[in-house]
């Protein structure tokens, strides 16, 4: 079983602020981390590798420093890592990103599954996984909370959707996006840390992937972010003090006064 896990280096959103004027994320001084959802995808990939044999390759697209998350993934147990990095990749939207990632998967050849987290905590689009599948023309199962079966031919997975669970069988190769419910990601081991310090991580660029300029980076991106704003808080909670009976009456009156029935 050859599994690729697509990961992303993201700013630790617990630390992030919005630049009100420019409508962009303030990334300066914010620590970068491995997208937490991708840890579940990585863990799922490693579990099946441990059971069925094979390899787990982590890949990411990003600037040279994105290599850090690949090394972290190796310290957790990934076998190999590939960095997709090129000035030409800068400014990519989800289409250009997933197109580039898909090309890399094709380049690797004979990949059975691509796994990724359900979404990244910076952009929150949840588009890259499905878009990789579209680009590769592979089946996809998104929001996977539990993988029931996996063998060389097919996968049976539970997808947790609002109000229910869909059980889907798909043939391989396949792309799946993984939810937190799937597992508990392991911590790095010292053995893994040792490996992650030594491992050589190849860097693949636009030319190596034989991608034309207009399909990558900003040029290859049909979407433009015009503005990012923080929604204003338009109503505040009210706190009332007093006797329970009076408070109950007040509450009923105010609920009747709203348009919610």
């Amino acid at each position, binding site marked *: 079983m050859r599994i690729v896990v697509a990961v992303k280096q993201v700013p630790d959103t617990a630390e992030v602020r919005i630049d009100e004027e420019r409508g962009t994320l303030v990334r300066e001084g914010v620590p970068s981390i491995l997208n937490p959802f991708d840890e579940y995808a990585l863990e799922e990939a490693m579990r099946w590798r441990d059971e069925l044999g094979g390899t787990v390759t982590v890949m990411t697209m990003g600037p040279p420093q994105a290599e850090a998350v690949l090394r972290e993934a190796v310290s957790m147990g990934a076998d190999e890592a590939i960095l997709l990095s090129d000035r030409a990749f800068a400014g990519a939207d989800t289409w250009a990103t997933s197109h580039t990632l898909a090309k890399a998967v094709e380049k690797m050849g004979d990949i059975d599954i691509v796994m990724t987290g359900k979404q990244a905590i910076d952009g929150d689009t949840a588009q890259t996984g499905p878009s990789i599948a579209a680009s590769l023309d592979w089946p996809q199962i998104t929001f996977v909370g539990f993988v029931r079966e996996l063998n060389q031919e097919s996968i049976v997975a539970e997808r947790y959707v609002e109000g229910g669970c869909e059980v889907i069988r798909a043939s391989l190769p396949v792309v799946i996006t993984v939810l937190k419910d799937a597992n508990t990601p*392991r*911590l*790095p*081991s*010292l*053995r893994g*840390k*040792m490996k992650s*310090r030594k491992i050589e991580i190849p860097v693949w660029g636009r030319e190596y992937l034989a991608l034309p300029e207009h399909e990558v980076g900003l040029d290859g991106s049909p979407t433009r972010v015009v503005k990012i704003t923080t929604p204003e808080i338009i109503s505040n909670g009210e706190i009332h003090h007093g006797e329970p009976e009076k408070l109950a009456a007040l509450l009923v009156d105010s609920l009747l006064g709203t348009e919610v029935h």
Partner: protein
Amino acid sequence: MNYYLSEELIDLKELCAKIAEKYILPVRAELDEENRFPREIIEVMAESDLNSIYIPEEYGGFAEMFGGGSMALTVATEELSKACAGVAVSYAANALGAMPILISGSEEQKKKYLPDLASGKKLAAFALTESEAGSDAGGVKTKAVKDGDTYILNGTKQWITNGGEAQVYTVIAQTDPSRGTRGLSAFIVEEGTPGFSYGKKEDKMGIRASSTMELIFEDCRVPAENLIAREGHGFLVAMKTLNKSRPGVAAQAVGIAQGALDEAAEYASERVQFGQRIDSFQGIQFMLADMATQVEAARALVYSTARMIDAGERKYDKESAMAKVFASDVAMKVTTDAVQILGGYGYMKEYPVEKMMRDAKITQIYEGTNQIQRSVIASALIKETAARGK
């Protein structure tokens, strides 16, 4: 203070911090309250290879990568102790249990036991203390009588850390009662050996996540090949073990103290009285300054001792005792002051500092009381002085 730790030690420290944050902090109060052994956390540590850091490569460990293992054990124990000393001692007690084999075991014994201890598949414990043999190891009453190719053990060990949880026990017993400490011998006893059972589990003041138990030997037959070193060498094995493990207790004390200092400093930066943060009052500032200075001084002494051991120094009983005495006294002082800074809140179980204060106390007592340590230091000093006079 920057101690210029190697890249490997920094990785180890970060890994322990991650384990502490993810697995220890959320449950430490519960473990303390319920007197519960942290089996799941011990498994996570094993999966992260933490049990291998003091064991040489040829037996499945990583000691060489860390330049010997003492510094690695110190760094790991300190980091884990910041979060919970009870969990940390459950981890470190494996090293204590493995040490007699590491220091004095035969090649066969090392090959048989160390790989499973390195992988964490098995846990270890060290058993010396008895009801009448505490500071005075010569008072050991557990007997081991040779019978053909076995030794028959009879007696009861008390207050054994990791008792009931470990699978491999290094036990000190009397093979020749007429010779006092020179009649002691060390044995490896495996869990499940007929005649070996567990007695009561202790209900302790602190480090309550750790298991502290009685070990009972009733006509327990141990293969003669499980004798460590030779008959009569048990006291020496025990002393070498304790000399080497003491920086571990000291590291535990440094971790507890640092944890308490962090809590106190944070609380003082948020607590407002008389209209201002309490860390703006000099009375609090001076307390925090003294606490921080003491913790740093303790850490410096502990690290220096661990580095001395890793460098291959043969004699370090004095330094090891100094590190243990100083760091544990600091831990007691700093945790008490932390409770004081948090005031009424510090006395409540909602905040972690009262637990830290309870946990700190044991570091002044176990693995040789601080009074015994001072005797060790003084006797080394007297010898050095006499040698200078010649």
